[in-house]
């Protein structure tokens, strides 16, 4: 576990609660938005829900917040069944994708709104609002109106407002998606810092895998209303449970091969399988670009792993090289210094590192449908 995760657990011992969703289902007409979803958040943990558009992430969050009713299933928070408690009494802080500050109130009034509804004394209310604004770094802007703030600032105020009521659970629905890349990354880390500081159980919905992997204790990958995998970011990336997860999180090459006895043979290379029980026969192996390395030139007879570089994409510290193998193309991700040795048009020989891989049987699970 990362050091961040342990500090989350320390915080958890203070006041954080466990959230448990069992068998949650929800349909809209013909569309099954959620299909018997089971998800448990440990106290003080930040779980990111990741998945392609329309997989039911927002629906999960809205069911948890009580903004939508479940057709079936149960939600418990700290052991208490809240399935039929209305949203206004669920005690959950929520930050929305759309800007949701009350336009007629100042920043301070916005933050204090939830406390006013709880009839907290004015002095306490004000002190708490100022504290919260300090937490998100906006105490200077307390007397401005929302329309006088930038998008990033508005989302910070929304976060302060959600946290001011000291909710049991914090829910974030793509709070960063309306912001530009730089503010996004900054605010993302800020959210994580605050979440750890407050030690609150948090569900964070995003369709940005980098965001999910960067801040979550555990990442839940969803597909068609079900949870495909719930695991730590490293596990989701390097030990994906299904081909769908492998393809959705990070990039994967799909290479035709043959499975036999727990090993898949791809273009002459034997790669061990993650799932040893995979039935024998033809299959598509999913190979990470960083498992592919390149060497210049090739032996006299063009083998199955030789080809021509057709494109080089510079990504900063690393670069992505596209190699044409004749019948297919393959992506390799290398340090930029190594990649520049193979300009477009040069002939190369590939090596595939024998990391355990997953196979997609018969084109099942093509990730990123609609994503």
């Amino acid at each position, binding site marked *: 576990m990362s050091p961040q995760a342990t500090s989350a657990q320390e915080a958890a011992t203070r006041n954080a609660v466990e959230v448990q969703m069992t068998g949650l289902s929800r349909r809209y007409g013909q569309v099954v938005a959620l299909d018997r979803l089971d998800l448990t958040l440990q106290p003080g943990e930040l779980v990111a829900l990741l998945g392609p558009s329309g997989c039911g992430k927002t629906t999960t969050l809205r069911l948890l*917040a*009580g*903004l939508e009713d479940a057709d079936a299933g149960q939600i418990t928070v700290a052991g208490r069944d809240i399935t039929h408690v*209305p*949203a*206004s*009494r*669920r*005690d*959950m*802080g*929520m930050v*929305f994708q*759309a*800007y*949701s*500050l*009350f*336009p*007629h109130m100042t920043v301070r009034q916005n933050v204090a*709104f*939830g406390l006013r*509804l*709880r009839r907290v004394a004015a002095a306490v209310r004000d002190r708490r609002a100022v504290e919260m604004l*300090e*937490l*998100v*770094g906006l*105490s200077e802007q307390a007397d401005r*109106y929302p*329309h*006088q*703030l*930038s*998008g*990033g*600032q508005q989302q910070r105020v*929304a976060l302060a*407002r*959600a946290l001011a*009521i000291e909710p049991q659970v914090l*829910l974030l629905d793509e709070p960063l998606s309306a912001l530009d890349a*730089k*503010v996004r990354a*900054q*605010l993302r880390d*800020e959210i994580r*810092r605050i979440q750890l*500081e407050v030690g609150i159980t948090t569900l964070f919905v995003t369709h940005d895998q980098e965001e999910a992997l960067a801040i979550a204790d555990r990442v839940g990958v969803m597909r068609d209303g079900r949870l495909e995998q719930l695991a730590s970011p490293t596990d989701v990336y390097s030990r994906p449970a299904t081909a769908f997860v492998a393809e959705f999180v990070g990039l994967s090459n799909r290479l035709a091969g043959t499975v036999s006895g727990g090993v898949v043979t791809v273009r002459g290379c034997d790669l061990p399988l993650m799932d040893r029980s995979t039935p024998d026969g033809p299959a598509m192996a999913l190979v990470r670009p960083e498992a592919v390395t390149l060497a210049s030139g090739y032996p006299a007879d063009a083998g199955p792993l030789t080809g021509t570089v057709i494109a080089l994409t510079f990504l900063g510290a690393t670069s992505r090289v596209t190699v044409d193998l004749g019948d297919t193309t393959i992506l390799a991700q290398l340090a930029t210094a190594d990649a520049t040795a193979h300009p477009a048009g040069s002939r190369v020989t590939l090596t595939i590192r024998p990391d355990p891989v997953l196979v997609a049987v018969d084109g099942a699970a093509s990730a990123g449908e609609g994503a």
Partner: protein
Amino acid sequence: MAALAPVGEVVREPSARRAAGVSARRRRRLNAFRYLVFTVFGLFFALPLLAMARFSLEGAKLGTWSVTAWSQIASYQGTQAVGIPPLISSIEITLELAVITCAVIVLLLVPTMIWIRLRVRWLSRTFEFLCLLPLTIPAIVLVVGLGPIYNRIQRVSLSALMLFWVYVILALPYAYRALAAGLGGLDVTTLAEAARSLGARWLTVIVRVIVPNMWQAIINALLLTSALVLGEFTIAYLLLYNNLQVELYSISRNTPNAGVLFATSTAALAFAFALLLILSYVGRRRRRSRG
């Protein structure tokens, strides 16, 4: 605790830069054109009104000035010899009607429209159609339809205030449009969900979150409604009620001085103008106090 460095975004200042882009000469020409249009249209509106005011001040001999017509309306007693002049009581009635109609319209429409937006979206088309319907029905048809109903009402109460039933119906389309415009500019759903997640019940959501953001729309609806009530003649006249317009009409008919006709019209206009100005001024003040 580590406060963040401020985000590198600044709230934009739209006007200055755009103006600088246009050359000074073009701007001047544009301004001249603006003033010309303003003057032409101003005259178009103002001339008849000024002429009317002038005629109301016409003396017995052509070209002379006199306030006879004005003093005649002020002192008009109608058939009664003593008591409150009918003009004054009709002003009173009309103002009361305006207030009642405005109150009923707002209390009726605002919660309904918000509720429809929040909870029963599918009803909004039907509701819009119903609200706009009175616009398509001619006043005379309304009166024919309302005749029997008012027969009943008059058995209970003879007060001219009972006109508010019709006026609410008449004002419905205008008030609806004004309020719909205000609601349309708000992300009602998100605001309501944010408020509810903070612990607000539905009533609190409407009263403390949605309504405060649509004051301008509400004031516009009030403006249109009171303008309608202040200027309404046909229905009151046909249903035999004496509101301000009807009273002014009967004064001008019963006084053997042509100037009175113009004086009453001018008075009616001035009255409505003054009230509407006050109302819109109140609206402006509210908006400004909010920054």
